[in-house]
C-alpha cells in the first residue's frame, strides 16, 4: 500500500469516486458555517464597518491561489520524475481553479480597497505579485491549450511550472524591493502574539477549511473529467484504426 497506487488511473477513479461526495459536502458545510457566521453573526469593525467581512472570501482565495501553484509544482515534478499521467492531469486540472482564486482575491481586494484605501488598485507589492501570478497562470493554461500532443504538453508545462516558480519567487522579492505597500502584514500566523481577534478568526478558519476542501473537490472532479476525456480519445483512436 503506497501513495503511488493512486497513480494508476483506474485505482484513482475508484477512490476519487468514493471521496468526491465527502469532500464536496464537507466543503459546502464549512463554507456555509463560515460565511453565515462571518457575515451575519460577527460585529462590524469599528473603523472598517461591514467591509471587514470581505476577508472571509479574500484571505482563503488568496491562500488557495498560492497553494494551487505549489500543488501544480509538486504534481509537475512527480510527472517529470515518475511519468504518472494522473499527476500531469491533476496539474492541468488545478490551473484554471488557481486562476479563478487569484481573480477572486484581486477583485475582492479591489472592492475592499475602494472604500478603505480610496482606490481600486495601487502598485503595492502584494497586489503586484498577485497580478504577476495571474499572468503565470494564464501562460501556463495557454501552453496546455496550444500544444496538441498531450505528453509533449505535459512535459513543456511542467518545465514552465518549475521555471515559473523560481521567477514567481524572484518577482515577489523584486516588487517588495521596488515599492513599499499599503497592504497590511500577516495577522493569522500561529506563532505571533498580535493576530486578528478571535471573533473574526474562528469563522475565518471555517472559510479557509471550506476553500481547501472546495479546491480538493474541484481538482478531483476536473482530474476525473480529464481522465475520462483521455479515455474517450483513446477509444476513438482505436475505432479509427479498427
Amino acid at each position, binding site marked *: 500500500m503506497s501513495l503511488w497506487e493512486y497513480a494508476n488511473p483506474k485505482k484513482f477513479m475508484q477512490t476519487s469516486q468514493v471521496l468526491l461526495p465527502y469532500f464536496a459536502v464537507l466543503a459546502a458545510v464549512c463554507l456555509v458555517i463560515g460565511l453565515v457566521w462571518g457575515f451575519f453573526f460577527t460585529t462590524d469593525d469599528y473603523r472598517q464597518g461591514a467591509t471587514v467581512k470581505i476577508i472571509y472570501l479574500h484571505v482563503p482565495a488568496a491562500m488557495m491561489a498560492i497553494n494551487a501553484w505549489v500543488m501544480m509544482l509538486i504534481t509537475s515534478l512527480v510527472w517529470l520524475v515518475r511519468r504518472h499521467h494522473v499527476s500531469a492531469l491533476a496539474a492541468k486540472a488545478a490551473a484554471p481553479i488557481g486562476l479563478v482564486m487569484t481573480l477572486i482575491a484581486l477583485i475582492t481586494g479591489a472592492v475592499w480597497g475602494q472604500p478603505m484605501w480610496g482606490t481600486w488598485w495601487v502598485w503595492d507589492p502584494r497586489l503586484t505579485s498577485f497580478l504577476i501570478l495571474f499572468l503565470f497562470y494564464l501562460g501556463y493554461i495557454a501552453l496546455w491549450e496550444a500544444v496538441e500532443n498531450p505528453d509533449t504538453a505535459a512535459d*513543456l508545462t511542467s*518545465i514552465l511550472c518549475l521555471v515559473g516558480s523560481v521567477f514567481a519567487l524572484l518577482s515577489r522579492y523584486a516588487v517588495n*524591493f521596488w515599492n513599499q505597500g499599503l497592504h497590511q502584514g500577516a495577522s493569522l500566523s500561529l506563532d505571533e502574539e498580535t493576530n486578528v481577534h478571535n471573533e473574526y478568526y474562528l469563522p475565518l478558519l471555517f472559510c479557509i477549511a471550506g476553500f481547501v476542501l472546495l479546491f480538493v473537490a474541484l481538482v478531483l472532479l476536473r482530474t476525473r473529467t480529464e481522465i475520462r476525456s483521455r479515455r474517450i480519445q483513446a477509444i476513438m483512436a482505436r475505432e479509427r484504426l479498427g
Partner: protein
Amino acid sequence: MIALLIRDLRQATRAGGGFGLALAFFLIVTVLVPFGVGPESAVLARIAPGVLWVGALLACLLSLDRIFALDFEDGSLDLLATAPIPMEAVVVIKALAHWLVTGVPLTLAAPALGVLLNLPQGGYGWLVLTLALGTPALSMIGTFGAALTVGLKRGGLLLSLLVLPLYVPTLIFGAEALTRGLAGLSNATPLLMLAGITFGVIAILPFAAAAAIRINLR
C-alpha cells in the same frame, strides 16, 4: 560552437535576417512616447529611464520567435540535436547570437535615444551599464521561451505571454538601478541583483531550454 555562432550571426545580419528590426522598433517606441505624454522636458526626464528599459525589453521580445523557428522549419535543429555538441551548448550559442544582434546594438543605441527623451546628464553611463548587464538575461529568458514554443504554429503571441512575466524581475531591478543612479542614490543593491539574475539565468536556463527542445523534437 564557434562555427555555429558565426553561422547564426551571418544569417541574422543578412538581408531579411531582421538585424535592424529590433533597433528600428526601439527607435519608434521612444519617438512615439513624447507624442503620447506631451513634450515637457521635466516629464520626459522623469519617465526616460523606464521608457528606455521597457522599449529595450519590447524590442528584445520582437525577435525572439526567430531564434529557433527557422532552424526548426528547415530541419537544421534536428541536425544540431544529433551533432556532437550538447543541446545546452547550442542553446547558449543561440542566446549569445541573439544578444549580439539585439542586446548589444540596443545598449549602444540607447544613449542616443536618451537624448531624445531628455535623460539627465550623468544618467548615460548608468543607462549603458544597466542595459549591458540586463540584456543578456533578456536574451537567455527569451531563448527559453522560444524553446518552449518552437514546435507550435503561430507561437509568437503565446511566446510573449510566457516570457513577459519572466521578464518582470529583470525589468524592475534594471530600471530601479538606472533611476537610483540618476538620482545620485546608492544603487549597488539593484545592480548586484540585476547581475545576479543575469548570471543565474545563464547558469540554469540552458538546461531547461535544452530539455524543452528535446521534448519538442521528440
